[in-house]
């Protein structure tokens, strides 16, 4: 393989691809990025066997088609540290020579055939979602995933694909986020009664990979795998197996109190008040009364905060308390001007934050 690449474009492609390189030493060969050049284009592929990402790189002139393994850490450092516009990559069974006008690097040879195969997207049926919408789904849910591996299925995001819409659901048992957007099903592609649970890491990589909001992402769900395909990339991931909790049963059917607040205002109030909550207590009291909402927090040593916010409310007084971080996580993912409807019934019951019909966020209070 022999190519001439535009250094910066090749660098950003390598950096994106490297998000699939395993951080732990599972299998030495996986610490490489596999480059594959044919007459038309050049693509990069990396995988940790759980997820794999293939990117097409622009700005590459292929002189001689072929394959090569590039050690991820080294090639990224070379591309980052050298100052030249173009670099020549020349791969032979001896190794890979990276050459600029004033620099030359030699990377020892590793056999490209040892690298796992690239799974193919397949072309029968899929869903199409606008990249901007998909990214919004991810950003509004993925923070709710469980981090402990004790409840393994909850470390992923449930991804439901219907005829006309797509939903992502994430929960760690303390709060639950549900986001929805429009989607187009082609060839009768739906997830049916057994929707996939996608690892949070996969969605993080996907998020970083979606640059153009208007681009259309194709999604195909296989037996134990999911593919996301954009114009110049394919992301492949294995799914998390196991039964996901029935989120529909958890979402409250009705609420006696409904208040509308702006996301930005609520975030500011919560952030200010939670200055005086600490790691051991992590607790923010909400007090709702006519015309205003009051946030109060207290540290274990007796420090206190009180923040008031005017709202349009005319109902009974009610108090409840939350872990402020749960609210901050959600509000950060919302545009500040967005209106959010808070729905609650009694103080011990979960509180629902809703934005139209496309987003619901359920938080369990503290007692």
């Amino acid at each position, binding site marked *: 393989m022999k190519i001439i690449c535009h250094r910066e474009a090749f660098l950003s492609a390598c950096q994106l691809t490297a998000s699939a390189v395993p951080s732990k030493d599972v299998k030495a060969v996986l610490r490489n990025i596999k480059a594959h050049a044919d007459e038309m284009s050049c693509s990069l592929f990396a995988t940790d066997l759980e997820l794999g990402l293939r990117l097409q790189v622009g700005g590459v002139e292929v002189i001689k088609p072929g394959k090569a393994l590039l050690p991820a850490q080294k090639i990224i450092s070379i591309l980052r540290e050298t100052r030249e516009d173009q670099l020549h990559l020349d791969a032979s069974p001896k190794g890979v020579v990276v050459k600029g006008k004033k620099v030359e690097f030699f990377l020892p040879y590793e056999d490209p055939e040892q690298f796992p195969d690239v799974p193919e997207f397949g072309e029968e049926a899929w869903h199409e979602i606008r990249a901007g919408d998909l990214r919004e789904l991810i950003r509004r849910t993925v923070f709710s995933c469980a*981090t*402990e591996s*004790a*409840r393994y299925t909850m470390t992923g995001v449930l991804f439901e694909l219907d005829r006309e819409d797509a939903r992502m659901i994430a*929960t760690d*048992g*303390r*709060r*639950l986020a549900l986001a929805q957007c429009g989607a187009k099903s082609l060839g009768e592609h739906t997830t049916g009664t057994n929707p996939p649970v996608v690892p949070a890491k996969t969605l993080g990589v996907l998020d970083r990979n979606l640059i153009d909001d208007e681009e259309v992402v194709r999604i195909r769900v296989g037996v134990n795998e999911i593919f996301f395909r954009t114009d110049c990339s394919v992301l492949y991931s294995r799914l998390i197996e196991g039964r996901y*909790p029935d989120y529909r049963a*958890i979402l409250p059917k009705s609420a006696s109190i409904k208040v509308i607040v702006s996301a930005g205002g609520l975030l500011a109030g919560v952030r200010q008040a939670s200055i005086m909550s*600490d*790691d*051991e*207590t*992590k*607790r923010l009291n909400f007090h709702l009364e006519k015309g205003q909402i009051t946030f109060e927090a207290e*540290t*274990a*040593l007796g420090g206190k905060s009180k923040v008031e916010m005017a709202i349009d409310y005319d109902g009974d007084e009610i108090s409840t*308390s939350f*872990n402020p971080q749960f609210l901050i996580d959600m509000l950060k993912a919302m545009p500040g001007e967005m209106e959010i409807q808070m729905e609650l019934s009694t103080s*011990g019951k*979960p509180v629902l934050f809703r934005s139209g019909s496309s987003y619901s966020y*359920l938080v*369990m*209070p*503290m*007692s």
Partner: protein
Amino acid sequence: MSEVLSGECVIERVPRRPIHRLDALTIAQIAAGEVVERPGSVVRELVENAVDAGAKRIEVDFEQGGIELIRIVDDGHGITREEIALALTSHATSKLSKSEDLDQIQTLGFRGEALASIGSVSRTLLQTRTADQTVGAQASCDGGVLGPITPWTGPQGTRIEVRNLFHNTPARRKFLKAQSAETTFLIETVQRLMLALSRLGAMAPHLVVRNQGKVALECPSGAMLRERAEILWGVEVASDLLELEAKGPGIKLTGVIGNNRLDRATSKFQHFLVNGRWIRDKSLNHALMEGFRGLIMVGRFPVGILILEVEPGLVDVNVHPAKAEVRFRDSQVVHHLVFKAVRERLRRENIHPTLTMTTSLAGTKSLPMGLGAAAFSPLLFTQQNQWQDLGSFGPPDEHPLALKPPVRPAPGLDFPKEFPRGLGPPSLHEIASNLSPKIEPLAAWENGLPTESRVSEPHGVSNPNPTPNQPNPKNLFPANHALGRFVQVFDSYLIVEIEKGVMVIDQHALHERILFDQIRKRLELGALPMQKLLIPEVVEFQSGQAQAILDQKTAWEKLGFEIESFGGGAIALGGFPVVLAHRSPSAVFQNLAEKLLQNDLLPTREEMLHSLLAMIACHSAVRANERLTPLQMEALVEQRQLALDPNHCPHGRPTALLLSRQDLEKQFGRI
């Protein structure tokens, strides 16, 4: 299967046998099985009888583990000729007359079955005379058959000889352990009785036990508990015991406990006596352990003798045939009393581990120990923020000075036994030729040392503590102590000069303790806020266990755990204490619940917090092998004085070892 059976052997149906009343001997032998298990239990029953008879002197002789012979001679009230036959018959006693008396039992024996039981499984000779009779009586009982009663002219009291134990119940005899094991058990039994006798104070009988004629144990009549402990464990142990006393409603607690250095690998060194009777009680073991929590290592057991006097109405002693267990009306109260008393006593003691140094070089007894101390590090930090190189100490060959951790090497306390490369010990010749250059930097280090006069008035003028005589952990450091004289060695230990001597601090252990105290202080006041779960977490137990956990539902709620039955052995966890942060609630809950099932007691709030906080503190403390800046060292040592128990980390390892100034001067031959 049935074919095989029918082919190989013929099973006959057992013919019907009529139900009939057992004869007295069989009844006695069955009953004996409950009371008289081993020779040791014979001794216990008979010595208790002697005590109940007001004896001033009790002599126990036994041979071959007590199987061949047990002889108990006392000078108590004795038995009249008329009562002898009755005494050897089952359920005859002078200590109890009607069932209501069972609630008010004050004597050791009461069931009235001991003597008859023993008589039915051995060759027993009973000789006795009361004070007002001139001629006593004797009778033998061979395997339950009472011989003729004949006159006997011995001294006042009772003399019982039990020979050939279990000679007529071969099955039982076969199940006796080796003679040595029976001897051990018998002596253990007598030791327990000896401890129990301390409650009688000056009235306690003189107790002598002889094995094959040799004295195995002797305890004078008026011995106090500490003396009895000394007989049991030896002088050295006894001198480290702490006396303790506490009172609760209807309960009085006295006893001795070991300090934290007296820990043992088993709980066999824990004795509990309730109303003069040695008993086994898991909850008391637990209370004692809890009292020592954080002071001794996990997996080690404290030493102690705890004597409870409980109003007879508050304790049921009639729950175990061998009287080895009792049931308290309210065991939580007893548990709490013991726990608090132990805790308080230890706190008062300000337990402080000491650093011991020994010389292992034969024939060089007067080798200067100070060099060992100097060899800790080539670097000494001085007040001028300069690191001075002490230079290399020669080749790293065998070192004559060995640093020994105190008493028992704690697993977590791996004080280096070898010096790092380049810091090898000097040969004697080198010591001689290098002595002065090495002392010099030390002297520089000591620039700010208290002068002799300052030492003679240990608490300087500016000392805030007005009562310098009281031991106070917070005043270990002189108030005018110029901070900055620290040495960090191996990037893990700090060496600090304090009023009493030189302290070696384990930086990780100390920081752990400080963080632990800080977090605990913040939590102590408030409730434990609970984060509820949208989706309950299910934790599986065995079904009986789950019920036991659910029975304590409200107690769990106070700890911040909301639990519900989930059917079968499953428990649904609906909420958990916020302090767990990212730790898995179900895993922590399961851990705590299993502790509960082990001890039959709900972990107390304190206990639960302790283990959680220890976990949190351990993870956020500075590690060993971490170079600290002078300011960090200063802050760490300064905060040490604020800790509640600065001398132990939450896991019970020492945070600091002390080499006292006196020891140092002794070793240098100055005093």
